[in-house]
């Protein structure tokens, strides 16, 4: 192993990769959320489907898609490897352990929350990405593939809406710890900035996840 791969496979090195990829994924969430706001434009999906066409045909976006995939794979692989190491660092457990008295639940359950997000991702990708790429989709008034129709269909089932809302709660909890934690991992902990980072991370997590959760709720209750 070279010094570089050695550094990245130490406990701090792996954690750095989780932090960098985690923040990168946060930037993806912003783009994804803003794009999907087209769902609310009340035009039978014309704007949303045009946006979908753009996202699937722009070469820059296609390149970003690959980087995004690498980001997800790295984040999940490194986080999983670290979690395994951490679980095996204490084989004999305490009979009584009151971690709730000294730490936050979400910070102790990042792996569990991440697993919920992962399962959600698989279902979500199957239902939208996979169908868009390989399924038979009708065309809308403007002649674009009608992903909007798939969206309406999916969010007419209560259990599908429930899965989305629960997953967004999990993502919010993951990010409430994860966002500020990533800065600590990258070495930024300073009394001038850390309170602002924590406050922004909290706000970011709630707004982004509430934004995503609003979509299935909108189609189920209001459409």
């Amino acid at each position, binding site marked *: 192993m*070279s*010094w570089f791969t*050695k*550094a990245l496979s*130490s*406990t*701090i*090195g*792996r*954690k*750095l990769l989780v932090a960098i990829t985690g923040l990168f994924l946060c930037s993806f969430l912003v783009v994804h959320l803003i794009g999907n706001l087209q769902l609310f434009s009340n035009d039978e999906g014309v704007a949303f489907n045009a946006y979908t066409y753009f996202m699937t045909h722009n070469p820059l976006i296609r390149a970003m898609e690959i980087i995004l995939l690498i980001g997800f794979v790295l984040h999940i692989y490194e986080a999983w490897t*670290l979690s395994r*190491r*951490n679980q*095996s*660092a*204490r*084989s*004999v*457990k*305490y*009979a*009584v*352990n*009151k*971690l709730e*008295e*000294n*730490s*936050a639940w979400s*910070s*102790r359950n*990042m792996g569990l929350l991440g697993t919920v997000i992962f399962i959600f991702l698989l279902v979500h990708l199957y239902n939208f990405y996979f169908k868009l790429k390989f399924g038979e989709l009708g065309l809308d008034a403007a002649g674009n593939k009608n992903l909007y129709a798939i969206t309406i269909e999916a969010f007419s089932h209560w259990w599908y809406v429930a899965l989305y809302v629960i997953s967004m709660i999990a993502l919010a909890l993951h990010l409430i*710890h994860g966002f500020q*934690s990533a800065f*600590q*991992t*990258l*070495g*930024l*902990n*300073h009394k001038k900035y850390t309170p602002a980072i924590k406050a922004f991370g909290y706000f970011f997590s709630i707004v982004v996840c509430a934004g995503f959760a609003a979509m299935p709720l909108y189609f189920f209750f209001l459409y």
Partner: protein
Amino acid sequence: MAGNNPNSTPMNLTLKVWRQKNANTPGQLVTYKVNEISPDMSFLEMFDVLNEDLLRQGQEPIAFDHDCREGICGMCSMYINGRAHGPEKGTTTCQLHMRKFKDGDTIVVEPWRANAFTVHKDLSVDRSALDRIQQAGGYVSVNTGGVPDANEIPIPKSIADKAFDAATCIQCGACVAACKNASAMLFLSAKVSQLAMLPQGKVERKTRVENMLAQHDAEGFGSCTNIGSCAAECPVGISLENIAMLNREYIMAKATSDNIG
């Protein structure tokens, strides 16, 4: 349990204590009764009373680590009712008073648990893994010459204070015991940042952090996921800022040191 006992009426307590013959034999929790415990006693004095009872009954006393009994040596351990050093913030077990408990309480006492630590016997735990991390680089080499004059190198007060704060770590291992990941990062970060802040320590700062982290990982401690249980349980209040500094030191060292192995 956390309720205080303001008056000085003696208490009767039930203890569930981890008993284990040696590192190779499995242990279990054993229940004992202790009576007439004064709220002014320390937790360790309460154990002294219990051990005298056990001796009188011809039983083996409970082994536990202790030395100074005034919060400076870091020897006393004990995971008390699910908390390192018990329910009170910023104390070692020797400084924990029985007035923190109520008459009739049941108290569960376990050894520090981490695969990098081994239980010698009962509550006594081998923490030499921390010594080995320290030996891997937690020092300043002075190879030749006379003793340097104190204050020869000026150090700003704010830096000296921060370095001193980090230097107060008593190597007790509560951070490891309380960490969900059994990580020794808070300990390691205190040692690394203490020396990285001082001019004398800057000379070896790159090899220090590289070697100390390598030893930390080789001992089988977990990684830090910024949960913060360590800092909440640390008896001397070592802050998470030190872990951020450790991460910075590590990134800088790996990016710029001569070590390409």
